[in-house]
Each structure stands twice: as C-alpha cells, then as structure tokens.
C-alpha cells in the first residue's frame, strides 16, 4: 500500500493562494479582448477550489472507514451522479432515459471496478477505499463521457436518418436491420475519445493519476503499470456502458412492431 502522507512536498496555504494568482492571466486576457468571461472564470475558480478542498476532507474521512456497506454506498452515489450527468448534455430526452443511463453506468462500472479490485489489483480488503474510490472515479468520469456522446449521437442519428430508417422498414426490414447503421455509428463515436486517449497516452498526455503517483515518490515504472490497468478498465467500462445505454435507447425508440417511435422523444429547450 502506498503511504498517503509521504513523498511529495506539501503545499502551504500561502503557496496555494499564490497559485490562484495564475487565474489573473485569464481574467486579464478576458478584459483585454472583452471576452466577457471574467465572471464565469472567477465563479469557476472559486467552485473548483471549494469543491476540491471539501473533497479532500471527505476523502480523508472516507479513507479512515473500514465498513464495506458504507464505502459501496459512497461508490453508488458517485455512479448515480455520473449517470444523471451523462444525460444532462443530450439534446433530446425520452421517458426512462435517466433510468437507462443509471443502469448502464452502474452495471458497467460495478462490473469492471469489481473485477479490478477482486482480481487484478487485489487490495486488502477489496473495498479498501484508498483504491476502490479513485479507481471507480476514473472509470465513471470516462464512462460518463462515452454514454453522453453515444446517447446524443443515437437520438440525433435516428432523427436525421428517420426517412431512411422508415424507408427500410417500409421495404420489409426488421427494426434492427433498419437501425443498425445508426446504432453502430453511435457506439463508434462514443468510443473515439477513449481510443484517442490510448493512442497518444504517454506521448502527448501524462495522465493525472500517474503524475500524482510519481510526485508521491512512486517509481515511474510502477506508476505506468497502474495506468495501463486503469486504461483497460476505462476502455472496457466505457464500451459496456455505451453498449448498454444505446441498446436500451434503441429498445425505447423502436417497438416490437418494428416501428420507429420518435414520438417518444422530447426536445429540450435551453441546454446545448
């Protein structure tokens, strides 16, 4: 187990405040170019600082816990937030979309993270929050993006391809035959960020977790191994989650009578 409080130089309150001055670069730029971003920049900065400081306290408390149900409950709450957020970015909705998203996020992340802590990394005990929570967090963050992209692409694909889908149906296609190109496209698009990330991993991006471990004093070669495991977890959880959520949306927006049910879609005002 890596010790929590050794290794990296600690950052004092004064140093933390000093780093905040860096945001003045953005504020200055916004003022000079009249971007009108000053308020949002400040708000975002304050939110970031407050949220992270709070999370620091919460994690310190959480890492002292040793009761499986409590830790699993925290994990489930994280998954719920991810499932709900994934839907927030879509342009259309249908009844049950939140349930579908929650189901897909929870099932895929529980399966993959569960396999990782029981079979791959094997912390003692398996619910050791110092491992379970960060691993789950990384898996969720990426699954969320995939699900969001996949859902949005699928719904928009059905809308724009509606005439083609119904032409195929009218020619005797089953709903799967008529929709499969839209389904495939949605899953493909949802997987692109994950594949891109793996392609340039280490060359363009040094992932946060690895950087953290290295600052903490871990040997880079060991940190890299964690990163590899994490990326495979992310890739498989994203694939499962996207497959699940697009599959469920397909079931909802078509019928067993092989009809396209776009009447079940509701356009959302506001949110882009």
């Amino acid at each position, binding site marked *: 187990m890596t010790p929590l409080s050794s290794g990296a130089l600690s950052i004092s309150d004064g140093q933390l405040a000093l780093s905040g001055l860096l945001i003045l670069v953005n504020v200055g730029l916004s003022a000079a170019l009249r971007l009108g971003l000053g308020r949002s920049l400040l708000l975002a900065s304050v939110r970031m600082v407050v949220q992270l400081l709070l999370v620091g306290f919460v994690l310190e408390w959480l890492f002292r816990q040793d009761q499986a149900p409590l830790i699993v409950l925290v994990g489930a709450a994280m998954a719920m937030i991810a499932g709900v957020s994934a839907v927030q970015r879509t342009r259309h909705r249908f009844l049950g979309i939140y349930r579908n998203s929650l189901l897909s996020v929870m099932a895929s992340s529980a399966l993959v993270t569960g396999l990782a802590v029981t079979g791959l990394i094997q912390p003692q005990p398996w619910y050791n929050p110092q491992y379970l929570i960060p691993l789950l967090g990384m898996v969720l963050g990426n699954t969320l993006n995939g699900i969001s992209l996949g859902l949005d692409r699928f719904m928009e694909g059905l809308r724009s391809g509606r005439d083609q889908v119904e032409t195929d149906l009218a020619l005797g296609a089953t709903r799967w035959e008529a929709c499969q190109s839209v389904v495939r496209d949605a899953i493909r698009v949802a997987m692109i960020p994950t594949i891109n990330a793996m392609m340039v991993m280490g060359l363009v991006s040094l992932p946060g977790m690895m950087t953290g471990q290295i600052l903490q004093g871990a040997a880079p070669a060991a940190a890299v191994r964690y990163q590899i495991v994490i990326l495979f977890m992310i890739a498989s959880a994203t694939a499962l989650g996207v497959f699940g959520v697009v599959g469920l949306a397909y079931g909802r927006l078509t019928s067993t009578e*092989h009809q396209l049910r776009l009447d079940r879609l509701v356009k959302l005002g506001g949110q882009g």
Partner: protein
Amino acid sequence: MPSHPAALDRSLLLRAHGLQRRLGDRLLWSQLDLELAGGDRLGLVAPSGAGKTLLLRTLALLDPPQAGTFSLLGRAPAAWGLPRWRAMVSYLAQRPVAGGGTVEANLRAPWRFRERRGGDGWSYGRITNWLAALGREPSFLSYDAERLSGGELQLLALLRALQFDPTVLLLDEPTASLDGATTAAVEALLIVWLAAGARAAVLISHDGEQIQRFASRTLELQP
C-alpha cells in the same frame, strides 16, 4: 396487357376496420373502413392536412395504430409479422429516400433484408424492361443515387417497391416531380402491373385529373 379483365382476381386482399387517427387533439378521421380487392385502384380524396399520408402510413403499420383492426388475405398483422406485412403492403413515401451508391445498389439493398431472403432476387431484365417503359436507358442503373433529381428518385422508389410484387401498393404522390410524359408512362406501367396478379393500389395525388384517370373508385376522408 390486361386484355382479359374477366381473369382479374377480385378476391379481398386488405381489410381495415374502425380506423381512427388523432393528431394532438385534432381528430383527423374516425370510424374509417376500407377494403381492397384484387385490381382495385383506390384514390384518396381530401384537402391538405386531412391525414391522407397518415392513412397510408397507418395501413403500412408504420405508426402505432390508435384504433381499428387490420387483415391481409384474412390474417392479422401479428400473424404475418410486421416486416412481412410491410413487404406485402408496400408504402412509397412522398419524399423518397435513397442510400449511398448507384441506383442498382439501391435496388439490390432491400433484397438483403431477412424478409426478402429466399426471394427471386434482383432481376436485371425485369428492371430494365420497366425502365424502357418509363423512357429510361439501362444506364440509369449506374447513376449515383444521391445525385438523382426529385423525379428520378421517385422512379427509383417505385421500381424498388415494384420488384417485390407487393400485394398492396400505397402510393403517396408518386409522380409529383415527374413530367407529363413520364407520369403517363408510370400510370400505364402501374395498370399493367396491377393486372398481372391479385394486387391493389391506393393513390394520393394533388392532381385531380390523375385521380380521375387512374382510380377505379375514390375514398373521401372526413372526421
């Protein structure tokens, strides 16, 4: 040519009973009964927005039916299976759509559907005969389907449906983008095709004269 009208199979093909359609809180039509026998050419007559297209979509079961019962050759849709039903009750949309590739690729594509496998398959000879009747060269088959004009797209959609010899053909403004000569050729082709088996057609047209020329009877839609 249909030189022996007595040989026409006049048996009942399609029956729809008690149909109703609402759009929002507007009742488009209700208590609608419709029967099609072999050789029938039914013209739908109603002002714009009265739900003519929706009636054709309803008969093809592309929308969830709001009320009513359907049967084709005495069997209910569920007994046929919906893809089979739509293979036999073929709906041609007002604005036809073609996928990527050539006209030929588009004519071949639906043969790959599970419902169509085991059929005769695409027939070059049959299609080119029809093309000739419509005043088009066989080279039409190699055109890029995404660059067809609106009228050419309608011809593609017509042949795409006709090649499967559906029992009922639902035509939604099938010649709206065609010139007069080709329109006449399409009507003549349809009449020959209809006479060649136990088949019927329903026609929507904004052109009252076309309804008069083509339809053997008409149905007026009203709420």
